[in-house]
């Protein structure tokens, strides 16, 4: 028979190379078990509402009114919606041309981009140009758009932290570029050493790879660390010297669970550094409505802000954005609401604060319960989740377990996570999906299960883990870094 267009052998090789562990083997197995009726605790994706987090009331009221603008003319609307939500809905509808049902400008509604720019000014103390802010269907789309603009072929390299959020490795393979890893140092609380970066770049160069960009994830995913101002300025200086675009994944900027290292944006640090850096270093930073105390993953709302990107390149990025017509408009309204929240004195203000604080404070407690829980387990060590939504414990697997995994045809941490899933229903992502040093194994869980369930989850984890270790440990030592 003649070959057909979609025969597996004929597919784009770059597609086949893509790996995306967050929805990989473990997730599929968990879904199967769930279908069989087993109770599964999904801690594989940072998806708060799926685990019971309630949406903030005010933004949902505003978007509902924008969806059904005829309600605004109904004399009874005030019975169900507070006046500030009604006013805000009118405000956003006036910024659109044709409401939620019309394509917007491909970069997003100009008025919402202005609200983002105002937010950035308040956050960083430096003006931001709405023409350099593009709204997107979630931050992932933005990241993919920028990477596809940067990457020409396999000799273009992108510096990516290891462990990393696999969106980066997946997108780089898809666009046919080369991932140039730099390792975060677990023993230094997942810190980043600029000397390592230099080594990574020179090694890549010796292989004929031009490193064009560097990705940082701050707060870290899956590693949860918050970068210090000093560290960020080192990174920016490095990017300046090497001529790299810095891609700042800052989607977890609201998720901070300690007070020593608050979130500080790459843009602020860059501007604080002054010229020549502030005028030269190319920076794209990403944000989303999916994280923070919003957790509105299902809306697919995000933006990126470009700094020091040449206007002609911005035009090209705009052109590519326009091929997808426009980001979804409801999520643009969510973004507007996120960057321009209620103010003291607004009718709904107190409820809004109560809800958002409730979420954040609970996340902070959960981060603590989880870290402590992992650290109480045999052969498990875990850094504290300073920020983001994940815990990334190292599992020191005994050689016998590694062998057992090998004979089962599995990577050792996949083996462990599958066993964990079967025994407890806890669905995690093996560290190998994020990258880790050779011979060292981790898993990622989110800190998102409901607070009241947390002690039981950690207990069931500990029971499984300690039994697993008992079964495989021959007390002669185990795999260590």
């Amino acid at each position, binding site marked *: 028979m003649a070959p057909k267009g979609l025969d597996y052998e004929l597919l784009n090789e770059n*597609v086949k190379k893509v790996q995306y562990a967050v929805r990989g083997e473990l997730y599929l197995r968990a879904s199967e078990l769930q279908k069989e009726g087993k109770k599964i605790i999904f801690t594989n994706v940072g998806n708060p509402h799926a685990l019971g987090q309630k949406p903030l009331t005010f933004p949902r009221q505003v978007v509902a009114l924008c969806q059904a603008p005829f309600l605004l003319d109904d004399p009874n609307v005030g019975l169900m919606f507070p006046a500030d939500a009604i006013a805000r809905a009118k405000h956003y509808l006036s910024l659109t041309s044709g409401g939620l049902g019309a394509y917007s400008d491909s970069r997003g509604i100009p008025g919402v981009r202005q609200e983002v720019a105002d937010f950035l000014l308040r956050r960083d103390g430096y003006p931001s140009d709405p023409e350099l802010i593009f709204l997107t269907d979630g931050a992932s789309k933005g990241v993919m758009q920028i990477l596809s603009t940067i990457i020409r072929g396999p000799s273009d390299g992108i510096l990516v932290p290891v462990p990393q959020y696999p969106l980066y490795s997946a997108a780089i393979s898809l666009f046919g570029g080369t991932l140039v890893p730099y390792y975060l140092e677990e023993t230094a609380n997942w810190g980043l050493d600029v000397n390592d970066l230099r080594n990574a770049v020179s090694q890549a160069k010796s292989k004929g790879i031009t490193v064009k960009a560097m990705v940082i994830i701050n707060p870290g995913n899956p590693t949860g660390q918050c970068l210090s101002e000093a560290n960020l300025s080192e990174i920016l200086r490095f990017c300046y010297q090497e001529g790299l675009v810095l891609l700042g994944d800052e989607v977890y900027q609201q998720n901070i669970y300690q007070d020593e290292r608050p979130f500080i944006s790459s843009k602020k640090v860059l501007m604080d550094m002054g010229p020549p850096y502030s005028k030269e270093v190319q920076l794209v930073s990403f944000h989303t409505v999916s994280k923070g105390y919003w957790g509105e993953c299902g809306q697919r709302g995000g933006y990126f802000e470009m700094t020091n990107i040449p206007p002609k390149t911005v035009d090209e990025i705009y052109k590519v954005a326009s091929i997808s*017509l426009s980001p979804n408009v409801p999520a643009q309204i969510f973004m507007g609401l996120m960057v321009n929240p209620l103010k003291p004195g607004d009718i709904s203000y107190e409820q809004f604060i109560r809800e958002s604080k409730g979420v954040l404070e609970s996340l902070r407690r959960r981060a603590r319960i989880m870290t402590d829980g992992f650290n109480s387990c045999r052969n498990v060590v875990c850094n504290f989740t300073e920020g983001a939504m994940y815990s990334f414990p190292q599992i020191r697997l005994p050689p016998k377990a590694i062998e057992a995994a090998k004979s089962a045809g599995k990577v050792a941490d996949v083996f462990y996570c599958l066993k964990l899933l079967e025994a407890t229903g806890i669905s995690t992502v093996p560290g190998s999906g994020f990258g880790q040093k050779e011979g060292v194994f981790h898993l990622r869980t989110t800190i998102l299960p409901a607070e009241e369930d947390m002690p039981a989850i950690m207990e069931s984890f500990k029971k499984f883990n300690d039994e697993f270790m008992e079964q495989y440990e021959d007390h002669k030592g185990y795999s260590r870094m």
Partner: protein
Amino acid sequence: MRRSVIGGAKRTTTTTCLFLLNHAHHRSLLPPLHHRLDSSSSSSSATALLLLLRRLSSSSSSASSPSPPNMPNPVSVQSINPKVLKCEYAVRGEIVILAQRLQEELKAKPGSLPFDEILYCNIGNPQSLGQLPITFFREVLALCDHPAILDKAEAQGLFSADSIKRAWQILDQIPGRATGAYSHSQGIKGLRDTIAAGIEARDGFPANPNDLFLTDGASPAVHMMMQLLIGSEKDGLLCPIPQYPLYSASIALHGGSLVPYYLDEETGWGLEVSELKKQLKEARSKGITVKALVVINPGNPTGQVLAEENQRAIVEFCKQEGLVLLADEVYQENVYVPEKKFHSFKKVARSMGYGDNDLCLVSFQSVSKGYHGECGKRGGYMEVTGFSPEVREQIYKLASVNLCSNISGQILASLVMSPPKVGDESYESYSAEKDGILKSLARRAKTLEDAFKSLEGITCNKAEGAMYLFPRIKLPEKAIKAAEAAKTAPDLFYCRRLLNATGVVVVPGSGFGQVPGTWHFRCTILPQEDKIPAIVSRLTAFHKSFMDEYRN
């Protein structure tokens, strides 16, 4: 003449893409993008620029203390992905930029121009031109966005009973009723069930919810397929000319080859299988592996609705040649003539007895078109059939990298494929709204078509479906000379003059592709009906004076 142009190697393998539909009718402060970088001229100018940049950076850095950048700017136009550069983008070309400028002028100095508003007939964006959404759909969406009110007695006063019922049904299909959660990467299973049932009701053949991938509008689904199909410029896709430029743009972005086939204007933009065969053979002789055939039905920009018999021949052709059939069926609800009916390619293939083993078929559907026109929601789906499990896994993987499509759009896609039924409380208002919109679109199409046809030198096919007219203008020699002197394509020249005189924004045919030496423009039928007479009289007056000026 046609033959020589189509047959030229360059023409077939070129990946230059044209994308001009965008609606950039909002304020844009960006400078116009006129630099078209064709590979020969750009490389030398790029090198020169690079040298200049290097020199500049070395001279400036000698004064500053920190070590200088030792690399060229990583995201300058010289160093970004050349496939991105290759896309040609006529929207930001003159016409829309001019329209935006005129709009600013009108705002600043009302009455300063011969018209008092800009009429955007360049893009299929109905609600931006005043079309109202379908009430029932929006009620359900509002309730799903804010489920907290579903339980409240007051909700009964504000929402129809069946919208409340439907919202409950939908929420119960969503795990945890969490509309703010990422869903399954293919879309919420319950919604896919509903859509599959809708497809089945439409076609009379079963549809499998696992064959459905819900996407943020149809465009990302098209991109996903291109990503899958295209590995290099050796991979080709047969695309209609004229075509919706999403195809040329995405083929260029993914580095493949567009293999054109021409629709025959004489027979109402007919799609001849003999033409497909000829182009396929020619492409193959150049070493191109043609992997798929794109068919847009109803046609964009050409508005034709394919006859069932024609569709059968197309299916047979794809089966014989092992081509994936990419069926853009986003205008399936937009059919305006009683003698034509929309038939999905899946129905046609199944009725021929062809199943999964015979044909790889992808059907794209969108919430943006039809009578609902919900462009801003970015909802859509593709139904993929005939794929091996291994390939399907690859599609799933691609979908999962982006996590999922937006939930509002997913819900709306399920509503569009399963609207209120006879007996439901909202049925009457729903069908009145739907019929009102579709009938009005049919009247607008007819009025505009008649108006175009009555003009000197203009011929115009019927808009049997979709949202566009694509009239052909026989431009007088003098006008073509004038355009040449102004260094613009003649159709662009005409469209610019039209805009300047009337405020009507249309897209030159060159953006869609046309038989060389013929000139067209695309005009949507979407302005509200009360505006149509004014548009017609302005168009007529303009065309008359244009012809008076340039008639031989």
